[in-house]
């Protein structure tokens, strides 16, 4: 496999297959503004207990435009989550940097909403109080926050559950509450680390459909880590394919399918072409 983003051997339905990843992307160019996040030559190395170091991420550059939906896919343990955390400044990179809004110094970190595979709701708080947590922590306006939290409860289909405790809800409902919590402080950037990974297939598809609706309605920038190729193609503007450890960028694929996408679209031949391309990239890498 050659340099990142150059291993194109398939006939992909897109214009500039050979475009280097770090180049300014059409979204940002069209908006006339720098991308919300620029990942510049980022690498992460972990020191193990025995003293040797493990390269989790070798060198990755990519842009996330404002309002975009970007998925990161790659084999297990390839550092997708690590990259995601670094994009939110929740983990320092070993080298390289994250630039927000094209401003290199004195920039304001975008307000974050984070969703993990587990809902991580606080078990001693009611669903409503869990959704209010970021509003309390960030000291946002309480009255407006409460109003927004109630609306979000409706958005994620949890009306009537505000006084319940997390252990009284199913896994899917807990995850909906976690999404509502992430959206409560009106974040600029939503980081989602396999948010549907612990759900059954049916709930998972339903949640993906709802996430698309929420994203289209709110216009948040979303970076989404997933194991599921079809989930990534279904949801994303762009799918970033990462190699196994040490992680490198294999391809950055623009998904040119009309929105809103329905689940039926998964049987569309164009959908299949994207999915097959990504699958081949990942399996070709494994055989090496």
């Amino acid at each position, binding site marked *: 496999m050659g340099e990142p983003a150059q291993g194109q051997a398939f006939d992909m339905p897109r214009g500039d297959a050979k475009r280097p990843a770090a180049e300014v992307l059409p979204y940002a160019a069209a908006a006339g503004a720098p991308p919300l996040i620029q990942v510049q030559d980022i690498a992460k190395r972990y020191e193990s207990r025995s003293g040797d170091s493990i390269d989790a991420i070798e060198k990755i550059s990519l842009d996330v435009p404002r309002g975009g939906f970007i998925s990161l896919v790659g084999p297990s343990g390839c550092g997708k989550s690590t990259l995601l955390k670094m994009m939110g400044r*929740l983990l320092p990179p070993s080298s390289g940097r994250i630039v927000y809004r094209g401003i290199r110094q004195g920039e304001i970190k975008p307000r974050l909403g*984070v969703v993990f595979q587990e809902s*991580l709701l606080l078990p*001693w708080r009611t669903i409503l109080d869990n959704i209010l947590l*970021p509003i309390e922590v960030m000291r946002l306006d309480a009255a407006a926050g409460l109003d927004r939290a109630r609306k979000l409860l409706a958005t994620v289909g949890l009306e009537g559950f505000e006084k319940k*405790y997390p252990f009284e809800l199913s896994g899917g409902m807990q995850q909906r509450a976690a999404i509502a919590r992430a959206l409560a402080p009106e974040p600029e950037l939503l980081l989602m680390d396999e948010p549907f990974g612990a759900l059954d297939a049916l709930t998972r598809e339903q949640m993906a459909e709802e996430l698309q609706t929420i994203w289209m309605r709110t216009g948040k920038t979303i970076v989404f880590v997933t194991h599921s190729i079809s989930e990534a193609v279904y949801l994303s503007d762009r799918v970033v394919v990462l190699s196994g450890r040490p992680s490198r960028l294999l391809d950055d694929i623009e998904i040119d399918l009309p929105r809103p996408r329905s689940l039926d679209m998964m049987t569309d031949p164009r959908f299949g072409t994207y999915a097959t391309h990504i699958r081949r990239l990942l399996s070709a890498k494994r055989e090496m």
Partner: protein
Amino acid sequence: MTVSTAVHDVVFSAETAKPAPMRAGFRTTGSIVSAIVLVAVLASWEGCVRAGVMPAFLLPAPSNLVLMFATDILSPAFLKEALYTMAEIALGFGAGAVAGIGLGAAIALVPMIEQIAWPYVITLQTIPKVAIAPLLIIWFGFGIESKVLIVALICFFPILVNAVAGFRSTDARQVLLMDSMDATKWQLFRKVRLPNAVPYLIAGLQIAVVLSVIGAVVGEFLGASAGLGALLVVRQSNMDVTGVFSVLATLSIIGLSMNLAVGLLSRRFAFWMDTSVKI
């Protein structure tokens, strides 16, 4: 929920977990049988003593014990002794809890304090606290101070060890989530670490409740001018078995009510945990 540390006082394990739920009908039947057994035992005991099978000076009849207990708790002199012991227990328990939870949080959250304090904690933990009591009486006299100290010391360790385990049990992913909200250290403590530690703190308090009564009574045995333990010694030397029973009943009521109070705390603050201490 099993907590394993080097120290044995952490009993927040399977034994304190609630038993498997029984069917309601079965439980009612059990309670009825239990009541019948109690009545039967008391009746035959009363019968044996009245018939002269059992000498009353060794084991007084239950009716006499009830009478004696009623007389005791209506007597101001007895109540004064009881209040004295309760004050020792309350002050000692409170001091032990505050110190144990405070130092426990510090040890769990500040690595520097852990390195300094932990070796001493382990070492002191191995000394039987009851064995230090004579020393404390020499140092602090026959008054209330020495007993409060004994109670505090005996309560301190189980509370401390459970507090350390509790404050360490915070989920790292939960911390990451709070980081994503730019939470301060205090917010992280107040909103996540502290509530998360509550079931452990309650488990520690529950052990300390039992120990605190033991501590106060042992302290008074060794030398006291007042208190139920001192009264127990006096009544024993008079061969007043009925009186001894009455003091025992009072002590167990003190212990039970403290247990109940901790149980209420648990129900209020640890309801969300399936292993929370039930009463």
